[in-house]
């Protein structure tokens, strides 16, 4: 059973409570800075690197928005480490992606305290800004999300990827910010790892029992989301079960590669699709046109998405940033989740589960996939 501590200070002050906790981390010199989503002057919420305690007032980690995956930011912060202690507040999908990036030597956990948070989902960026302008607060969001209220007519819904995410509670965090089972009025900290427990000792916080309703509440959310996931993917799989249909699904792709940029586990320094490999001479296009009579340009769009499936579906954490990034509204998240479900099952791999678990294709086994290689062990 984990160790929990309740963040005190009266009702209705969700961000104040967590802000005070972050402040204490800086004041007690547990870390030199915290990367945490914080409110911006124009009402947006963006990951913000805070090194002065006063900055923590703007922290709003539970705000239902993630304009980008912070995994890549943590990669930038740590791949060439500053050598200074740092805490980062991340959603489960971001944290899971980070674990994968660490395995790929793109990030580094040394001197890093991973603070996770119960995640009830996020809105698309535009929707969130609209809601924020209309005065919606994070507390209200959490209340209605925890009560499992459907979005009312005309109100924006959560990003589809969040509705089918099996990880409302993150894995591999050192400390977790908990609201499930207790509500936004009573935020708990769970001290999970050795690193996390050391922080608790430095802050001198007392431990308490796990909130009584928490486990059951988590289970309920997970089972609801799994149900949604299965329904959505079953319907989606039919939409793409032939190359022709897949091509249709991707017809609007303009090769902007935004999905790739947004993807937290697409880690190549320079994507193969911007190299010479896909820069064809004019006569090549003419040959294709001659061969088929007509030829849609940009070409290589199906190839691009299939290549991404090949490269990252084993590592896909299902964050849905690809869909959010597409200017033409192509539903990429279900496509990649659908593929990821299968590749990950096939390799018995789950991204973000365990830092020690080797990624598929990073290790060589003489005896695997005998049905493919034709070489039985």
């Amino acid at each position, binding site marked *: 059973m984990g160790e929990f501590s309740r963040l005190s200070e009266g009702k209705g002050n969700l961000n104040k409570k967590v802000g005070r906790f972050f402040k204490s981390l800086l004041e007690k010199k547990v870390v030199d800075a915290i990367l945490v989503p914080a409110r911006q002057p124009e009402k947006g919420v963006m990951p913000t690197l805070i090194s002065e305690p006063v900055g923590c007032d703007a922290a709003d980690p539970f705000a239902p928005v993630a304009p980008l995956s912070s995994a890549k930011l943590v990669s930038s912060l740590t791949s060439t480490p500053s050598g200074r202690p740092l805490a980062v507040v991340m959603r489960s999908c971001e944290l899971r992606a980070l674990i994968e990036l660490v395995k790929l030597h793109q990030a580094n956990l040394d001197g890093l305290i991973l603070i996770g948070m119960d995640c009830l989902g996020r809105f698309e960026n535009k929707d969130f800004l609209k809601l924020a302008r209309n005065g919606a607060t994070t507390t209200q969001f959490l209340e209605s999300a925890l009560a499992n209220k459907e979005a009312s007519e005309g109100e924006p819904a959560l990003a589809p990827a969040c509705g089918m995410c099996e990880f409302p509670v993150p894995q591999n965090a050192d400390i977790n910010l908990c609201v499930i089972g207790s509500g936004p009025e009573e935020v708990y900290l769970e001290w999970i790892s050795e690193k996390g427990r050391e922080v608790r000792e430095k802050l001198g916080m007392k431990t308490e029992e796990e909130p009584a309703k928490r486990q059951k509440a988590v289970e309920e959310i997970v089972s609801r989301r799994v149900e949604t996931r299965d329904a959505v993917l079953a319907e989606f799989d039919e939409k793409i079960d032939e190359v022709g249909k897949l091509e249709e699904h991707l017809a609007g792709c303009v090769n902007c590669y935004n999905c790739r940029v947004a993807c937290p586990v697409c880690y*190549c320094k320079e994507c193969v699709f911007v190299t010479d490999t896909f820069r064809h001479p004019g006569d090549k296009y003419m040959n294709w046109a001659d061969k088929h009579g007509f030829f849609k340009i940009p070409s290589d769009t199906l190839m691009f998405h299939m290549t991404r499936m090949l490269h990252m579906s084993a590592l896909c954490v299902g964050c849905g940033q690809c869909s959010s990034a597409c200017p033409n509204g192509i539903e990429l998240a279900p496509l990649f989740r659908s593929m990821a479900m299968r590749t990950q099952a096939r390799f018995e791999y789950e991204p973000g589960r365990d830092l020690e678990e080797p*990624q598929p294709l990073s290790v060589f086994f003489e005896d695997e996939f005998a049905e493919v290689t034709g070489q039985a062990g």
Partner: protein
Amino acid sequence: MADQERVGTVLVVGAGIAGIKAALELAETGYKVILAESSPHIGGILAKLDHQFPTNHCGMCRMLPMVGREYASQHCMRKSLYHDNIEIMPFTEVKSIKGSAGEYQVELLKRARHVNPDICNGFGECVEACPVTAPDEFNHGLTDRKAIYQPVPHNVPQMLVVDVDACDKCGECLKVCPTDAIDLEARDEIELVEVDAIIMASGVSLYDPGTQDDAKPYTVSEDVVTSLAFERILSGSGTYDGEIHRPSDGRPAKRIAWIQCVGSRNRRHGRDYCSSICCMFALKEAVLAHEEGGPGMETTIFYMDMRTFGKDFYRYREMAEKEYGVKLVRCRAQEVLKDPDGTLTIRYYDNRAGEFKRDEFDMVVLSTGQAPFEDHKKISELLDTEVTDSSLLKNEDFSKVKLVKEGVYICGSLMGLTDISEAITSGIAASGEASKLLRRINAPRIMEKEVEEKDVDREQPRVAAILCRCKDEKIPEGLDLEPLGAKLKGLHGVDEVHILDSLCREEQREELEEILRKTKCNRLLFGACLPYVYKRKLKHIALDAGFNYSLVEVFNLLDIARNGLSDPDDKGWIGKIVEEIQVNKEKLRLARALHRNIVPINQSALVVGGGVAGMKAALSLAERGVFVHLIEKSRRLGGHAGTELQYTVDNLNTSGMVESLINEVQDSDGIEVHFNHEVARSDGALGCFVSTIRNVGGGETKEIEHGAVILATGGREGKTDEYSHGKSDRVLTQSEFEKKFSSGEIDAGGLENVVMIQCVGSRERGQREYCSRVCCAGALKNAFKIREKNPETRVFILNRDMMTYGYFEQYYTKARGEGIIFVNYELDSKPEVELGADKPVVRFTDHVLRLPMEIAADRVILATGIEPSESNASLARVFDVELNADGFFVEADSKWRPVESNRLGVFMAGLAHSPRTVNEAIMQAEAAAQKAYEYLSRGEIHTPRVVSVVHDSLCSRCRRCVEVCPYNARSFDEVKNQIMVDPEACQACGMCAVSCPNNAAEVLGWNEKQTMAVIDAKLRDESVGAVL
């Protein structure tokens, strides 16, 4: 590599694995090799085996060269083999040998195949037409073949041969042969060759249960097969597609028994030796039977001693027993009885139960041993040399490969029964001895011809198609390629088309060279036949004309045209050839010229350890002009053998030999001994290592540059406190005893009873979990010494299995004859030693009488086995090589690369590798020295054109390529923050390219653009083509 006037030439007789390895080594060292093989195919016994212990895979190809792989074939060795410097002569026997070292004249008898392999098109119509059948030797008579047949079904190209004994000359084959390739009147031919040295590797035959009497009580049914026949039953290319069925009625066999030592360990029939391989062979076959035969399989091995004496053998035995449930029964199987329903019953005496038992089986496998004698007699006559009392060829003392006749070496089972690993080691060692001779007599080496290559890197790609119409050869009237030529002229990207009558003919070579001289093209596409045969030849011609190797492609035109030939109306083949040309042309147009890099090789070596193996390796290299730094952590040379061993079981003087080695090392100008030093650090790669050595006491360090490393760290006798060792002077280890006894400190006269206990702290969980191989012969040696001085002494040897492999068996037989008493014990009933006031009392159970015994022993002598050197762990880190669970260095491949580590340029020999006898360690040292010399002798290494590279600007440093590289060719340089590739170690397997998502890791010679273009050219389904 090109012809030259006179180069150092070695004849290797026998193309089994030992002979092939010896040939490859010498070829790699730059000498010419004639590889003669009496049977129509190469590969020997191993051509028949699909699976080898311990991996249960084949792996034969791992003996092919890694550095310099471009000069040799890079495909499955069971298909075929070639190397630029090796002339392979199958179906060839040695008739006579005259002359001496440096000038042997050898008469070779080339037996008639009756089928010209150059002309045969491999359609196999003659085989269909042949009315005569004979038992197929390859499947051990389990299947039939024709009188005209392919000796090895998986050889490529197919090499047919006529069995003249079976052939009745009916001429049916002649009638159907479209190319006139068959000549039933062909005669054997004699060829005289002059060579500098000879390596005999003619191997052994296996005991034939049909002709001799050992097997008589067993061979009662078709379902009693030999172990090699069972191997064919298991083989995917064998009799039942790899399923296990009984030969008699084809029913699945679920209960299988192995009977060991059939045709060996039998003095009465003059076979007083242990075949050495059968125990592991049987264990492996039993494991495979479980794997292939599925659930319900029951396997039992009836054995006398389970001889698991090699590295990791004992672990394999434990795995077979524990994980697969292979049952081992120690007994001599009396007989096999056949029941009316075909069931086989084995009757045997169960020692443990003390009664006769009968067990039923579906199939019985006889572990038929190696049978060496015929060959030895013939060879000794050919060479006019002596044979030993054991009918073996007479070697120099302590050498297993050097005959007493200068310039003649032996390897493989000719030495006296070897397993694969030892056969390979001996092949390398024999070639090492030959290369020493060749260097001594200044025999010139083959020099690579330098051809100036046309610089086409900045030219537009222009492709010339050169097509062969195969006139007069396989198709007498020739293919009608004119319509094809016309089509190609209009094809974008094909700039010239040339059609020749027959590319394979020497007469056409001039015409071809003329074309290559005149062409404006910089890329060549040949359409010919049999790419296995002609690809190299055509590429060489192109290379000589200044074309780049990677800009020449050869495709199998005839193969595609075949369908058209059998059906004259089908003109579809022209379309298919056009498509093939499209594909190849795209590939060629996008290909880049690949160049070789020259890496200079530092001409010195670092040998770690000054024991016998280290000194021998150092001397061997120094003799060939390689300067050696010999690092010894103590203040003296000699190692384990120098202090612990006085003599061998065959009565050779070990201490004298060590002493003379020490003198030789100290007198050598080519060896610098660094006493009291250890290696602290090592960087670099083959040819350019930089190592730091430091004084053992600390302080002073020195930096040494060297080209190769030999780890010969030795070992020492195991320590024990079992059986009251250390508490009484009457309880000693074997070497403690040996020292005191040979110095006279222990007087033989006072020894009434001596009890030797074997396997002390060995083959036991939590202790030394392996067999130390040397202790059984060591115990016999000391037993004989005692009885030599005092014939009255009673010697008891308490053992778990007597590991007297090979010809050590004779000493075991002799010992029993002399009345030395052998008592078997198992781990659960170990003997006990009690120290009394006077003599220690040893208690044990006699395994025959099954009665408790008690002996008051004057001395209890413990065989404690061999422990690895404690410095192995730090050296493994320094040189980035692996240690096995027991602390010995791990070879790159236990069978096929037995003295190489998994790091290129780092070799191992002696006890650093695993426990072994002095002469085995010496052989390994020679082999390790030869491997190092093979690289160092080149002066510089030309890296292969096709290697993997890093595109640094694309690289994300995720290091997946480093983790996945099976050859340790990739590393991450922390300082440079870059992935580094060692082009010599890289084998272009492509694992890195697969693991890299964005082509930052690329294997040259086949880029992504080519892949795309080839797919595009191949795609005919428009709906798919359009979307890509």
